[in-house]
């Protein structure tokens, strides 16, 4: 039933109350009293989403935050953090830089630390190697990353780089392990209908937990 029909069904009639307000105070884009009754649950691809969420996602996806150079650096860093191995592909195989780009728009508090961190890295590389991080050689990049990848073993002056790299490591892991490739890499086998019968017997035994495997 449409909302207006339902209003009719419960017996609505408009009653002027004699109260007048300035029409200018109504939102200009709103046709008052003429809003179509569209329930949130339409059963389409965007069911279960509020209108503002859908609009927000669309807007964020249409905007661009990082420059091409920044994106290139993010890609190099992401693949240093999660490279291809014999089990699965690399961070860029799962489009981690695009994910980080989205998150920077979704969580604006990430913008300054990421943009500033990338610039910090480039300035460090420029001083050391005469090149930006992206233009440095592979050996130079690794030398740089080695200086910022180990938070409990930090040379003076490298602290900000460590904070940036910690953030990059976390974002890269989030981006990679939330894709099909990452989930297969981990071996997560849920998200399907099944019957939970408890921990498999051989595993209960492996950990010597028989006496606790009760309800």
């Amino acid at each position, binding site marked *: 039933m449409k909302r207006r029909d339902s209003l009719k069904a*419960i017996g*609505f009639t408009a009653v*002027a109350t004699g109260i007048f*307000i300035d029409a200018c105070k109504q939102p200009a884009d709103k046709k008052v*009293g003429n809003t179509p009754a569209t329930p949130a649950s339409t059963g389409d691809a965007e069911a*279960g989403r509020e209108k503002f969420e859908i609009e927000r996602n669309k807007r964020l996806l249409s905007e661009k935050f990082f420059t091409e150079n920044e994106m290139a650096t993010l890609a190099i860093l992401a693949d240093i953090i999660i490279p291809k191995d014999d089990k699965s592909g690399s961070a860029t195989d799962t489009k981690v830089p695009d994910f980080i780009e989205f998150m920077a728009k979704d969580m604006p508090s990430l913008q300054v630390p990421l943009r500033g961190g990338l610039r910090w890295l480039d300035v460090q590389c420029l001083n050391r190697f005469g090149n930006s991080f992206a233009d440095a050689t592979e050996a130079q990049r690794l030398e740089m990353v080695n200086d910022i990848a180990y938070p409990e073993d930090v040379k003076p002056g490298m602290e900000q780089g460590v904070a940036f790299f910690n953030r990059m490591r*976390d974002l890269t892991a989030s981006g990679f392990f939330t894709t099909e490739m990452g989930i297969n*890499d981990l071996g997560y086998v849920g998200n399907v209908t099944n019957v*939970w019968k408890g921990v498999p017997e051989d595993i209960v035994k492996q950990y010597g937990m028989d006496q606790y495997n009760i*309800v």
Partner: protein
Amino acid sequence: MGKFQIRKSSTVHDVVVIGSGAGGGMAGYVLANAGIKVLMLEAGPFFDPAKDSHQFKWPWESPRRGASTVRAFGDFDAAYGGWEIDGEPYTRKDGTQFDWFRSRMLGGKTNHWGRISLRMGPDDFKCKDGLTDDWPFTYDEIKPYYDKVDRLIGLYGTVENIPNEPDGIFMKPPKPRLPELFIRKSAAKAGVKVITGRGSVITELLDGNKDRQPCFYCGQCGRSCKVYGDFSASSCLVIPAMKSGNLEVVTNAMVREIITDKNGLATGVSYINREDMQEYQVSCKTVILGASACESARILLNSKSAAHPAGLANSSGVVGKYLHDSTGSSLGGFIPQLLDRKRFNEDGTGSIHIYSPWWLDNKKLDFPRGYHIEYGGGMRMPSYGFGGGIHRYNAKVPDRNGKTKKAGGFGASLKDDYSRFYGANVSMAGRGTALAKKENYCEIDPNVVDKYGIPVLRFNYKWADEEIKQAKHMQETFQSLLHEMGAIVTSSPHGPEDNYGLEAPGRIIHEVGTIRMGDDPKKSAVNRWCQAHDCKNLFVVDAAPFVQQGDKNATWTILALSWRTAEYVLEQRKKQNV
């Protein structure tokens, strides 16, 4: 100049129910099935888990991979709304804190809750320490309604015969997950009682109900369930009640006030439609208020008239007072023995598999009352934040070859670490009794309105020493449990500087007590039937009438109370009293 209109309905409804969550949903269900014509006003949009749930979506189906930027409990969580809603502010007084979670949608917060379904016990209704007021009835009086709720809605659990943790009518429960086996073992050593969880997830067919299917163990109750395998007020109460033909729902109806006549009786409800921004008024013989504890208090306080100058049902002045949430504090870590664990589907149910009911004697403790512990862990579906902060713990154990390594890192060995640590995590969270106090309250902010022009709530809530000591005890218990299982703590440490991790009031979303019940109209707003002392055709069916909450989550008691109140309304209608 435009004409400002209020659309008034000429129909006089038998009953108008405000709110469609556990309280409003249950009242609407009972009344509609008894043949009463019910009009239900819901502030949010329609929501049917069968169509609107995000169940079975993969993290990559969200551009933020399930992060909580927009929805407080993640992008796939069922709850619309949250701690902050655009255009609907609330304020706080004198530097105190209260965070108010609102879920504006059919079914309200029951669409996403943890389904942890605990009965309050005899000592929760009549306390033994004399520190708080008693409820006007005993556990035995409410027990038949808990039983009815168990049969109608269904829950799993085990019969344990614990005096203040009453058993229900249980379906077969799920067995523990692997980290939960470690918890059971360590708890036995630490002297902490652990029993099987109690969750309103049906693990068997429910007698006489063809609309709901048993749980298929995806572990995603927080997203709401497409086959209605768990309890949401939308799927289990309101939608079935609509099928009776006696219950009509008006969505996006944000209630402004309850209207009374010169004798002080309720005659109708006025609301604004959130979509068309028009004003409406409906008439009725009886109003049942179930908008959530704080929203219901707000509506009453905003319903001022000559007959009710301090707000409706508030001649006692208690409306808004005695606000209390559960206490909450948590700790997490990982179990080194579980590194490189064998993979299997460990999703289980979306409610708890095990928990610790309160197990200690307060005579030996420096704080009153107690808490229960909820446990988590295992190989769950990854989402935003997966592996976060690994540099804080990946060097706490030797690598695959038994060698020590440096924390953090990158490359193949780091990638391997994510996999090694996967599913080795364990977490525990205490949920405890906070004492109901007059000094903790919500009231109308004299200076602020929301975008609908409705005056907003202002909160004043402070934790007291006993609640901080309780959180301290929680942390000590968690530390000893983690120690006994050889786990390594990964959460930030809690201490006196952060009140031992005690969450701000409101964060546990168990807020109750704002329209308290009692036999004395000078000290309470509603009587033992949740009927307003000052307005006999007004009833309150959410958690607002709670006198004092135990450490048990509120929902099961809301459902039982609401059913009882709805039956009382039916009786009173027969006697033509309302």
